């Protein structure tokens, strides 16, 4: 705590002070210095790498050795547009991403609401810890655990057996369960944050005006929490859209991620061309999310 002193001659400023004074007088430079490193990293390193990859979508490959031949061609885009398999795979992946998002919203809301508005502070912090903990459990091990849960000799079928039912776990349904499970914490946390921000007074007003719980939910709570829901959905949607490990372990259906992974070695330009699809989808999704003010609720 510096005491305010009046002296005839101000103390000689150290280089550090002189630097701060300079920055104080030149806020634009200060801004530039602040931004220099992050921008350099994100724009030059990351964005640059992306551009390099996507440019390769215009190259050709040797049909035997798969070496890249740098002559521009639209052949790769032609392939992914003309052959129906790419369309099918893309649509299948997008559907899966949407279904997973829906399931996660449904599963997240009760617990998020409970944590935000009903639980005592102590319970709340315990629950937050309980939600965060599984994020530390390895993604791979969770998928392997689900592999065994879903198998013909696994827990689900073991439980269904006395009822005479059976469940083919190694399917798209099984994969949907796995994805829903994996990304659930990413939906719970933003929704919890969003629900907590809703002032109690609004809910009281709603009840005073005669609304039942369901009406309050649909007319007051959900709309107010919607940006947070969208924020959470960014994670569930994009993580599902691009994953290639879980689909490979659970089902034999192809998804965008698995196709790109399989052909990346010997058909990199086609893989890059196909990679444009999820990129475009996600950029569009992000733009919509931004409009819906989700970025403030991340």
């Amino acid at each position, binding site marked *: 705590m510096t005491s305010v002193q009046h002296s005839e001659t101000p103390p000689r400023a150290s280089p550090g002070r002189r630097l701060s004074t300079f920055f104080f007088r030149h806020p634009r430079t200060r801004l530039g210095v602040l931004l220099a490193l992050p921008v350099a990293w*994100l724009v030059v390193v990351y964005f640059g790498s992306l551009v390099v*990859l996507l440019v390769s979508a215009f190259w050709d490959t040797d049909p035997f050795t798969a070496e890249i031949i740098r002559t521009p061609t639209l052949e790769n885009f032609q392939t992914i547009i003309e052959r129906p398999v790419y369309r099918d795979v893309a649509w299948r992946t997008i559907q899966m991403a949407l279904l997973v998002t829906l399931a996660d919203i449904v599963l997240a809301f009760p*617990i998020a609401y409970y944590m935000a508005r009903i639980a005592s502070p102590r319970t709340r912090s315990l629950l937050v810890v309980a939600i965060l903990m599984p*994020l530390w459990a390895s993604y791979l*091990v969770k998928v392997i655990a689900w592999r065994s849960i879903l198998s013909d000799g696994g827990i689900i079928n073991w439980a269904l057996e006395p009822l005479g039912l059976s469940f083919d776990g190694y399917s798209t349904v099984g994969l949907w369960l796995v994805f829903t499970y994996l990304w*659930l914490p990413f939906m719970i946390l933003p929704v919890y944050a969003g629900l907590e921000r809703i002032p109690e007074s609004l809910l009281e007003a709603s009840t005073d005006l005669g609304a039942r719980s369901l009406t309050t939910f649909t007319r007051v709570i959900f709309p107010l929490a919607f940006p947070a829901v969208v924020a959470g959905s960014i994670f569930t949607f994009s993580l599902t*859209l691009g994953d290639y490990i879980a689909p490979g372990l659970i089902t034999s259906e192809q998804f965008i991620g698995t196709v*790109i992974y399989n052909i990346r070695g010997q058909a*990199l330009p086609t893989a890059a061309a196909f*990679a444009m699809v999820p990129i475009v989808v996600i950029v569009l999704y992000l733009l919509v999310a931004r409009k819906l003010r989700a970025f403030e609720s991340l």
Partner: protein
Amino acid sequence: MVESRLTRLLLRGGAVATLAFIYAPLLVIALYAFNQNVTQAWPIENYSTKWFSVAYHNEDARDAFRLSLTAALGATAVALVLGTLASMAVSRYRFFGREVITFAVVLPIALPGIVTGLALQATILDVLGPLGVSFGLATIIIGHATFCVVVVYNNVIARMRRTTGSLDEASADLGADSWQTFRYVMFPQLRTALLAGGLLAFALSFDEVVVTIFTAGAQQTLPIWIFATLARPAQLPIVNVVALFVIVVSIIPVYIAARLAGGAGLTSDRPAKGAVAVEVEAQP
């Protein structure tokens, strides 16, 4: 309490169900860590703790664990620096391209991991390689830090939105230089947000496999080691032991962080209930 008793009951039931859903597979992992058999059949026939000692003596697993820790620490450090810098810039200044920064920060985590991985691998091979940077710890950290920035950024920017710049100005008026202002005024306000962001970034990096497969070269982080062990059926139980170990060990930092943050915010910043009534009503 505004909610009716029935609603509260239902919500509590829903919460319990979701928690059960979240923890059931983790219990399965824990059970299989004690499974004597190599294959993961159900129900488990024989229990044994032998795999714990096998895992402990497995050098590859230990090396991978160490590499993952180091990489996560490095990535978290980089993410903390970059995320704080960027959020300080975005929250305190109005400049052209401000919204683009937020977009650019979110992009690495939003884009499919395989795209990020392929892009970074190509860059490492063609650009960084000739410059002398080869696959290794550095490239792993580069890959992780790139999408860890966003979690730090979100936490810090949310916190900074809650504070005004007037405190910093007051500090400067009182004669503090930039470093002192940061150390005595800004940092204490940001501390818990940084902790929360850092913790999340660490978890993200420690468990990352999708991008790391492309940026690690011949190195093995723990997730890569697990992935490789999938190919060796005789060693599959070790994976469960290692996973259980990580889960149990991670209780400590997460719990500490929750206590330190005082329950006030572990993801984004959440003020006390009702305190933002003004903000909400001001929204269109």
